[in-house]
């Protein structure tokens, strides 16, 4: 094998090859025409898919009649206001809060962690869970890891927990588990989603088999796809093909990362540390088994048990009135587009986000704002 094949740039470029992309765009147009009816709606459940679709301009290449809608794909976006509030209360009690970047600006009921920071709270943005351990080792103060993200991120939290935490470090888990949320969306009658594009990274951990019971229950196909342009296009071609042939199955189009069983070592760590419980996702609903909480064995490092979290103490700050108009929930359920929100680009911008979807670089509103508002849907591929 020539040495250039092992170059990271070439590795990714293979999955960005324009000629193959054009061929797949053609195949997608043909498959959609073969359905003999429109519109057909499919949903992806990953912010990273939307980001790639926007970044590579894929949406304008989708055939007319194929709606690729965004589901609850962003753990930042679906972290509910009361969960942010818990972090804010702890921050205002003087503990250090460490969390991933996007989370800092997500509005809670009355303020975000960034607002608390402006009031003097000690907020730290981390890139990796491993940095939280270093942070706790560098101080004698209490440090709380506001741990957010799906199963992919939760395994990193599990790994540091199993590695043993410094005594001044505890975990406030707002981790979420994706498969149960797909059930909810599949049951919303208005969305009429005929197929799902599943997130390749989450499936790297869980394996593609995790979707098999879902497919059996709802009779809709699920295609696991990666995040390069060819991954997404090929995933969609496969998905429309499965819809055309009325063959609800799980197909793994991301074999370079995903296996049927997934990463068993990571799953073992994940379930050793966390248990699934029901809980609200912002804008969506109560999701049974959608929240990951620390198991009882880890009560001593559970921030909810180590500290008193009295949400009423936040009430001296008035809730933001604008937030009432935010339609993030409808957007994540596939019922609306960001441009349907009357605050979009006006009162709500990435600089001053009103809702969570305008915060994260994988949030639907932020992406549509960044890439020129309403993407061009008029392509005639």
């Amino acid at each position: 094998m020539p040495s250039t094949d092992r170059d990271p740039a070439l590795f990714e470029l293979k999955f960005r090859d324009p000629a193959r992309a054009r061929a797949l765009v053609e195949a997608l147009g043909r498959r959609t025409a073969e359905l003999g009816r429109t519109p057909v709606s499919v949903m992806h459940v990953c912010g990273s898919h939307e980001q790639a679709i926007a970044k590579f301009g894929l949406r304008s290449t989708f055939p007319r009649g194929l709606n690729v809608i965004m589901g609850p794909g962003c753990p930042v976006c679906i972290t509910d206001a009361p969960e942010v509030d818990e972090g804010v209360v702890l921050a205002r009690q003087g503990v250090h809060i460490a969390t991933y970047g996007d989370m800092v600006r997500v509005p809670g009921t009355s303020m975000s962690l960034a607002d608390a920071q402006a009031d003097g709270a000690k907020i730290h943005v981390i890139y990796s869970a491993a940095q939280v351990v270093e942070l706790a080792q560098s101080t004698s103060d209490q440090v709380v890891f506001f741990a957010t993200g799906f199963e992919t991120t939760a395994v990193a939290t599990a790994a540091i927990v199993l590695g043993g935490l410094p005594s001044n470090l505890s975990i406030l888990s707002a981790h979420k588990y994706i498969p149960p949320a797909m059930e909810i969306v599949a049951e919303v009658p208005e969305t009429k989603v005929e197929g799902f594009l599943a997130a390749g990274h989450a499936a790297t951990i869980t394996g593609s088999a995790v979707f098999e019971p879902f497919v059996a229950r709802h009779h809709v196909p699920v295609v696991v796809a990666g995040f390069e342009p060819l991954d997404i296009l090929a995933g969609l071609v496969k998905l429309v093909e499965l819809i055309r042939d009325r063959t609800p199955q799980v197909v793994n189009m991301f074999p370079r990362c995903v296996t049927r069983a997934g990463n068993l070592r990571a799953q073992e760590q994940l379930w050793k540390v966390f248990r699934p419980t029901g809980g609200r996702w912002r804008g969506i609903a109560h999701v049974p088994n959608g929240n990951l909480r620390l198991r009882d064995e880890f009560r001593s490092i559970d921030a909810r048990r180590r500290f008193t979290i009295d949400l009423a103490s936040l009430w001296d700050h008035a809730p933001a009135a604008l937030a009432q108009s935010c339609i993030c929930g409808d957007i994540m359920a596939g019922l609306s587009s960001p441009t349907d929100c009357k605050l979009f680009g006006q009162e709500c911008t990435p600089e001053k986000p009103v809702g969570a979807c305008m915060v994260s670089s994988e949030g639907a509103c932020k992406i549509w704002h960044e890439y020129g508002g309403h993407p061009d849907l008029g392509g005639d591929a």
Partner: protein
Amino acid sequence: MCLGVPGKVIEVAGNVATVDFWGVRRQVQLDVVDEPVAPGDYILNHVGFAIRRIPESEIAETLALYEQLITQAEQDDLMAEDVRNEIAGARGDRRAVD
């Protein structure tokens, strides 16, 4: 924040690998990856933890899957001539050009 980024392992020291991401080097934890990782391997990084060693054979397998979709479409009917030529050109594989 869920972005998983592939990178190439430069060095492994115990539980931590130094990984090259398009010229940027970062430390990546190996606590959750399910296979031994060695310099030269590709890994999928997620928030500072490798979650997968990406085998070279399966990169090829992924590309073959796509190739299959494309060829199938070709056979079904008329893919534009220039697209086929372009693919062949990109492959450096003149055989496929009609």
